[in-house]
């Protein structure tokens, strides 16, 4: 894509300009070195001279600054943190892999060791107790930035998005027609992102109770007690696990430009219009 556009440029392109001062008039007025006058005086050749396309359209790329720096930082810190928290968390769960009583203990779920991090309970707890800070910090910074900047409006699922969920789901899962896309995120994306942020908040609050059930006894009570909180904590992880594969598949389907925008902030040729 980028290379094609470069080829269209004349041999000596004008110096780089910022989007603000690169007006259409300037670019159209730029004189093509291979002007029609030059070509007329040249001797006729048997092979047709490649015609330089007239620069009717300015050679500009559409781009959107989709992800401000705080969002990109918190996204990647959070991505690493969730990976560590889930894999070490599964290792911790292996130590008592049930939600029932200790006596008699019935294994609910045998997590393969290969999916876990930390090697043993103590090692996994070290990872968990280290990355909980990265997880919490990225979450708090993310929410603070989203709320203070107003950027949350692009991602927050609200009642007016409800009607758009089904057409989008039908498009993705049942090969239905693609509904018109307006903003940065479609209603299904908003639902996925908003609920995942909810899972993050839930995992943090339940984690706080599991870590300090005596200090946060009131919060423990609100969540239904220590025992139930352990289930909520696991459920929040399941929420993440439900989100991540779909998220990754979508990233792959939408290609490099979309993925790269979470690294550089800028998305080249966004699929939406406004």
């Amino acid at each position, binding site marked *: 894509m980028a290379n094609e556009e470069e080829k269209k440029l004349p041999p000596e392109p004008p110096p780089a300009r910022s989007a603000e001062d*690169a007006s259409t008039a300037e670019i159209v007025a730029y004189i093509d070195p291979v002007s029609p006058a030059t070509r007329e005086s040249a001797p006729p050749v048997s092979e047709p001279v490649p015609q330089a396309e007239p620069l009717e359209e300015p050679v500009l790329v559409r781009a*959107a600054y989709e992800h401000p720096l705080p969002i990109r930082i918190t996204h990647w810190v959070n991505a690493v943190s969730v990976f560590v928290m889930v894999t070490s968390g599964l290792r911790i769960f292996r130590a008592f892999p049930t939600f029932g009583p200790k006596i008699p203990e019935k294994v609910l779920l045998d997590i393969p060791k290969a999916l876990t991090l930390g090697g043993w309970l103590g090692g996994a707890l070290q990872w968990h107790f280290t990355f909980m800070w990265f997880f919490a910090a990225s979450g708090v910074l993310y929410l603070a930035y989203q709320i203070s900047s107003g950027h949350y409006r692009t991602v927050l699922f609200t009642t007016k998005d409800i009607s758009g969920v089904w057409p989008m789901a039908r498009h993705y899962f049942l090969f239905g027609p693609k509904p018109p896309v307006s903003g940065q995120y479609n209603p299904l994306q908003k639902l996925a992102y908003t609920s995942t942020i909810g899972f993050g908040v839930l995992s943090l609050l339940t984690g706080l109770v599991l870590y300090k059930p005596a200090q946060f006894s009131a919060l423990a009570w609100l969540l239904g007690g220590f025992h139930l909180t352990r289930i909520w904590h696991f459920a929040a992880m399941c929420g993440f696990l439900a989100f991540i594969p779909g998220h990754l598949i979508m990233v792959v389907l939408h290609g490099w430009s979309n993925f790269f925008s979470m690294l550089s902030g800028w998305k080249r040729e966004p699929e939406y219009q406004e």
Partner: protein
Amino acid sequence: MIEKMEDQELRRKSRRQLLKLAPVAALGVFAFSRLSDPLVAAGVRFSDWASSALFRSQHLAPTFSMSDVVPFSAFPYNGYDVTDPGVDLEKWTLTVEGDVQHPGEYKLSQIQALSKISQNTRHICVEGWDVIGAFGGTRISDFLNLVGANTSARFLEVECADDYYESIDMASVLHPQSLLCYEMYGQPLDRGHGAPLRLQMPTKLGYKQAKYLETIRVTSVLKPGKTGYWEDQGYSWFGGL
């Protein structure tokens, strides 16, 4: 917000923004175990520091009615090694050492002579299981008072008949629910649960609540690499709830 710009301009802007994100790549150090091992150990120390700062010395852990207590048979016997180190209960004494005015050997009857606390609290294991049990004993703070301990010292070290050992921060030791426990379910502590005396602290994880106590020591200095049986292998030292 869609802008239009020349390709080069977009590339330049993208590159600049990409560079700003680059420091996040520092998290990659965790991919190397030689670096991650000390880093996650430091992470636990930081968490312990935060836990200690968060600890409210007078805030009580939840207590429960007898109907919430699990049957005695459902309260696990949990030890790192043996469930009965063969303590001679007749000759047993508690050795008190360190920064105390009256060091020496104390009989169980001397401990039981102090005011008795009965509490139904939740015992939480680092593995994730929990049981609500019924415990009886004397406040550690009362006993420390009896032996004239310097409670501005930082730690209480304990050594056990099964070679288990622990050390606990003084704020948690002095907590009103921290007991020298000699009873469970109204009966003398049985051998599996740490007879004749164990720590019982609802503000600590199970592994901090050492059983088969033999020696307690008031000190402000811990021996490096000898702070607790599991802690020396990587568990959180504070282990607070």
